[in-house]
């Protein structure tokens, strides 16, 4: 039997895998003083993937590998943002990891493996590939968190992350097996056909759906499955925290869209998972925003802020229409942008033997360096959702989608909790501008990190004033990917 398949839609994945293996071997021949070569190769791999993905965009969904892989516009756009996020994260964390003994080949290889996992998740059209991509990402992340072996807090964080992550994977797998039992297929396109036709056994489907939503909640870090988020954010080296908080959120968004919207998006099931997501979204916004107020550690505070942002993301998805998914995608892209900037700033203020992770460390930043204080101000405003930054527009578009879907009360609740959340973001602004500095060490970032950080901070402002392009891109890619067959 002859077996031919179009391979070119998967060129980015293949290139990435080849590059990771090459870097793994090349790193052995590089001495510690020349580790910069590994770093350059890593950036080259990401840039190469960017170029390949860019050149192979067609705008039409193309399936290959017996329907296990899909290359549509949504996956292309999300992948492009993923590469950018990882590249920026590497630039920001270069000085940080160098002073902490993490500037090693394994760090870069694991980061690239995690990126490959995200790419696989984003392009998956089969529950099996979704799950394998997720595990590839998760395994690399566990190892990255634990990479700082001598730090007790990092080891504890890695242990918690690993145990809870394994539990979540178990739930997800159990749910998937139930879905398979009910419909007899694992392929998402086939699954949606069967479910749309009203086939499959309803009770068993919903039963599987419950477990899948619980597993997704764990992976997203939404309440009541959020217990690991603060500990992992706090315990991991800041560079790894930045990594966990940025690009994987894009992959998680794709995961939710593929599984819930594309696979199980039929009327009767949509109503079911909408209810579950409403509970998770409201609880996430409430607990995330209120608990964040009590934190004195900035990384912990941002962990709770992540939980509340994930609640907002779920709001977009549960709206259940093109507007909702599009604004959800916009929200997650913007969130990654803000998170990159904020953690980049934490690493900027850190130096050898000192972590700028407490709120006090930001006291009087304006006197030390007004420019960085201004960038941090923009990022905090955006996180809080204040105009004219892009965070405002992201929240607004999600709220519009929620109101359009007929959940006015949900929008009111979301606005109330955002107001509570604004308190702790603005507290940082107050510390920066109206307090005297405790720490007077000069801030000397590398040139590349300095330029990128400025671009990142200003992008938050510029995108806030001109959000139409990005919004249109998100809407269009969702439309071109999800609404072709219907």
């Amino acid at each position: 039997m002859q077996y031919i398949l179009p391979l070119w839609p998967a060129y980015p994945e293949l290139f990435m895998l080849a590059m990771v293996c090459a870097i793994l071997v090349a790193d052995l021949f590089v001495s510690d003083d020349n580790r910069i070569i590994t770093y350059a190769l890593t950036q080259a791999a990401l840039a190469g993937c960017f170029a390949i993905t860019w050149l192979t965009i067609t705008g039409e969904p193309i399936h290959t590998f017996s329907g296990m892989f899909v290359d549509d516009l949504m996956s292309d756009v999300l992948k492009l943002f993923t590469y950018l996020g990882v590249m920026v994260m590497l630039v920001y964390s270069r000085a940080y990891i160098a002073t902490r003994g993490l500037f090693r080949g394994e760090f870069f290889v694991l980061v690239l493996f995690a990126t490959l996992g995200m790419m696989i998740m984003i392009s998956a059209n089969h529950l099996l590939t979704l799950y394998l991509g997720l595990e590839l990402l998760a395994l690399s992340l566990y190892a990255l968190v634990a990479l700082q072996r001598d730090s007790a807090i990092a080891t504890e964080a890695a242990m918690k992350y690993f145990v809870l992550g394994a539990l979540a994977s178990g739930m997800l797998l159990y749910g998937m097996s139930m879905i398979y039992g009910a419909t007899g297929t694992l392929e998402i396109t086939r699954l949606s056909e069967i479910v749309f036709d009203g086939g499959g056994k309803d009770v068993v489907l919903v039963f599987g759906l419950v477990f899948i939503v619980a597993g997704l909640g764990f992976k997203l870090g939404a309440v009541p499955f959020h217990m690991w988020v603060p500990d992992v954010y706090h315990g991991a080296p800041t560079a790894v925290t930045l990594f966990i908080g940025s690009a994987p959120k894009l992959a998680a968004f794709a995961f939710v869209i593929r599984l819930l919207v594309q696979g199980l998006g039929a009327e009767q099931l949509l109503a079911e998972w909408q209810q579950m997501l409403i509970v998770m979204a409201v609880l996430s916004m409430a607990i995330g925003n209120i608990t964040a107020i009590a934190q004195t550690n900035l990384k912990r505070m941002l962990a709770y802020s992540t939980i509340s942002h994930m609640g907002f993301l779920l709001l977009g998805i549960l709206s259940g229409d093109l507007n909702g998914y599009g604004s959800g995608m916009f929200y997650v892209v913007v969130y990654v942008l803000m998170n990159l900037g904020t953690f980049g700033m934490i690493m900027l203020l850190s130096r050898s033997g000192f972590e700028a992770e407490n709120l006090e460390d930001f006291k009087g930043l304006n006197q030390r360096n007004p420019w960085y204080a201004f960038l941090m101000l923009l990022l905090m405003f955006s996180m809080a959702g204040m105009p004219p930054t892009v965070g405002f527009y992201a929240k607004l578009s999600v709220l519009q989608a929620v109101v359009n879907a007929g959940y006015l009360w949900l929008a009111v609740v979301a606005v109330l909790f955002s107001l509570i959340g604004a308190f702790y973001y603005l507290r940082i602004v107050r510390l920066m501008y109206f307090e005297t500095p405790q720490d007077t060490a000069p801030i000397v970032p590398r040139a590349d990190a300095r330029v990128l950080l400025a671009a990142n901070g200003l992008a938050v402002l510029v995108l806030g004033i001109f959000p139409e392009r990005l919004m249109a891109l998100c809407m269009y890619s969702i439309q071109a990917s999800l609404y072709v067959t219907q």
Partner: protein
Amino acid sequence: MTFQTFIFYFFAAVLIFAALRVITARNPVHAALFLVLAFFTSAGIWVLLQAEFLAIALVLVYVGAVMVLFLFVVMMLDINIARLREGFWSYLPLGALVAFLLAAEMGLVLASRYTGLADMPAPPPLPAGYSNTKELGRLLYTEYVYPFEIAAVILLVAIVAAIALTLRRRKQSKYIDPAKQINVRRADRVRIVTMPSEKKDQ
């Protein structure tokens, strides 16, 4: 009840019993042995489903290799069971309540009319010359080649992570480098000092 159904129920009962004992046995070695029993009975169920290659692979790989290794590790580690069980009784009431509720709800759903024997019929009998292994191999390298490769990458990550997390260069370890030993010259090891002879003091 046909003989086949009887065998199925027998294996299923043993499997559930063994799985329960894995998590309730006090002694970790016993738990590992019950896991072996659980693997063995699930292999039996797979044979009933005419998946004999998978059944044999399960016994060979898991029972033969993985579990033996596991037993060695369990026996070598001196696990303090008393410390592991600290706080067991204080967590038991709540845990038992949640577990009971979960199990009852799942039972109610799964015992519904959708999951009876009639809904999950046994596969049709296969012809005598049918090769399970060949079919699996064909599927694995054609339709499932993509997940197959990803699984390989996951194993690679496991290797990289395990080495990155455990390999450390100890400064004080006295390892031997044969190349250095062979290349050694006399001058590196022995220093000949010329010294005038001294008279013993009287």
